[in-house]
């Protein structure tokens, strides 16, 4: 198998049987602080691989689309080939790590709703925080892609939190990467393991990479415990979270909008003379019994064409809502 990409702790290999897949190989290397601290710990790759296998399988069972196909070997996953977005997403339920340093707040503070942040994937720059506006204007992603990633990240957060709760662990924060297939599908990619999340036991002890970062415990023992816990969970009992989508339909630019004109006149009568123009449209709030996927966004476009808007006279915009 040809090495397509050599990452810090994983290797991407070509899949000899399919041009549309890759083999993701987990090494025993552990790094922290952008590679400043680096060690090889025997057995880590296999455990991170197994954790990812369990968690991707779980998320797929709840309808979240990921790049995961199957376990290929002890430390290898077969995945759909995607182009990774240069922006990664972090979701925080509880203050920890860099967030506490950045804003000088107490470790352990609970966030409700959870905080979602975007980071630029760039080792030389140490993966800095990036604003939505900068990411879009720099041409890294579109607003729609960011909204999609945030929405899916919040769904993933819900499902992971529920799963870990079953085995008395709490999910503090985690990082997700997204990729796009040649067909344009956006999928959750990379890995989901103790390397990419923080997990605390009921007594507040870490069972994640913080043990290595802070040299405060046995990483392998923790990762093995995590896998054991996950095997005891009962994913079927976790209910599907409903998602909500908002479709806004507006009269096309340049078309007269009589209801808007009547409203403008009425506002002027009320003394709001600075009101220059009003246009009246429609808003549809749609509840879905399934996480947001690229396919569902396609369905929404079809819903617009078929029923929600009339393209002769209206323009429709699909918005992803975060309603807690």
């Amino acid at each position: 198998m040809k090495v397509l990409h050599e990452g810090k702790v994983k290797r991407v290999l070509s899949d000899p049987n399919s041009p549309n897949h890759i083999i993701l190989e987990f090494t025993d290397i552990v790094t922290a602080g952008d590679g400043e601290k680096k060690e090889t710990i025997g057995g880590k790759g296999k455990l991170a691989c197994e954790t990812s296998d369990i968690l991707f399988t779980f998320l797929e069972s709840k309808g979240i689309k990921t790049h995961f196909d199957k376990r290929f070997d002890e430390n290898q996953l077969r995945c759909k080939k995607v182009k990774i977005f240069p922006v990664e997403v972090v979701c925080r339920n509880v203050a920890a790590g860099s967030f506490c340093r950045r804003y000088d707040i107490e470790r352990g503070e609970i966030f409700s709703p959870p905080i979602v942040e975007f980071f630029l994937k760039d080792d030389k720059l140490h993966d800095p925080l990036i604003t939505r506006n900068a990411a879009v204007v720099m041409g890294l992603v579109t607003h729609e892609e960011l909204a999609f990633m945030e929405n899916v990240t919040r769904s993933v957060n819900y499902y992971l939190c529920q799963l870990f709760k079953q085995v008395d662990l709490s999910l503090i924060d985690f990082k997700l990467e997204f990729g796009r297939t040649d067909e344009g599908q956006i999928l959750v990619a990379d890995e989901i393991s103790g390397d990419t999340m923080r997990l605390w036991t009921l007594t507040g002890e870490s069972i994640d990479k913080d043990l290595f970062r802070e040299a405060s415990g046995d990483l392998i023992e923790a990762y093995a415990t995590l896998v054991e816990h996950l095997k005891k969970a009962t994913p079927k009992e976790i209910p599907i979270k409903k998602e909500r989508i908002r479709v806004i339909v507006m009269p096309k630019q340049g078309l007269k909008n009589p209801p808007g004109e009547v409203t403008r006149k009425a506002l002027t009568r009320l003394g709001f003379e600075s009101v220059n123009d009003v246009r009246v449209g429609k808003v549809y709030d749609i509840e879905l019994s399934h996480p947001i996927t690229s396919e569902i966004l396609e369905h929404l476009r079809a819903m617009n064409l078929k029923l929600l808007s009339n393209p002769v006279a209206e323009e429709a915009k699909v918005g992803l809502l975060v309603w807690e």
Partner: protein
Amino acid sequence: MGIAVIRFPGTNNEYDVIRALSLIPGTEPYLVNSNESPSVLKDATGIVIPGGFSYGDYLRAGAVASIEEILDGVRTFANDGKPVLGICNGFQILTEAKLLPGTLLPNESARFICKWVYLKVSESPTPYTEGLEGLVLRIPIAHAEGNYHCSESEMRALVDSNRIPFRYCDSDGNIVPEANPNGSQENIAGVLNEKGNVLGMMPHPERASRAILGSEDGLAILENFARLTMEA
């Protein structure tokens, strides 16, 4: 055999249409409910979609009705070249179903308009206006969304292929902005599909079908429709 008059939930002109058609010798209008199978339309010789407020005009006038299964039957029927007449909400349903071009926007006044208007019939012959070419007809309208709008290219096609049988005009037949009740492009009151077998019009010919109603001008249009159903 006969003329199917389709009733959706919220249609309210079906009996007016049936009564008006019954004045024409040889016609056998019958009521079809929109929840019936499209196959009931197979033996019809013509279809009328009458006015009203199908599905309460939710989303847009005609939008919900346009995706009902019965419309599959109407589409097949229309594609076979058989006559389909949509009046008022029926016109709106036919545009939403894309059996006719364009759409009907809210009236420019943003009000429901119920009044008698004059229609100038196209000078060039169309299947629905035989014997009426160039005449001025007096027929009432009653709608909130009758403001006809279509793209520039569609408008060019409508004009070039003589598919605008009726335009709002004054009592002398002048097609002027003052005679336009709702803001329709080019004073359009009705349009035909490419084949000329599907007509949509906002005015109500069935409400101008007897002298006692104030005008018989609408009956002439229904007679043309009835003739087409007998030829088909």
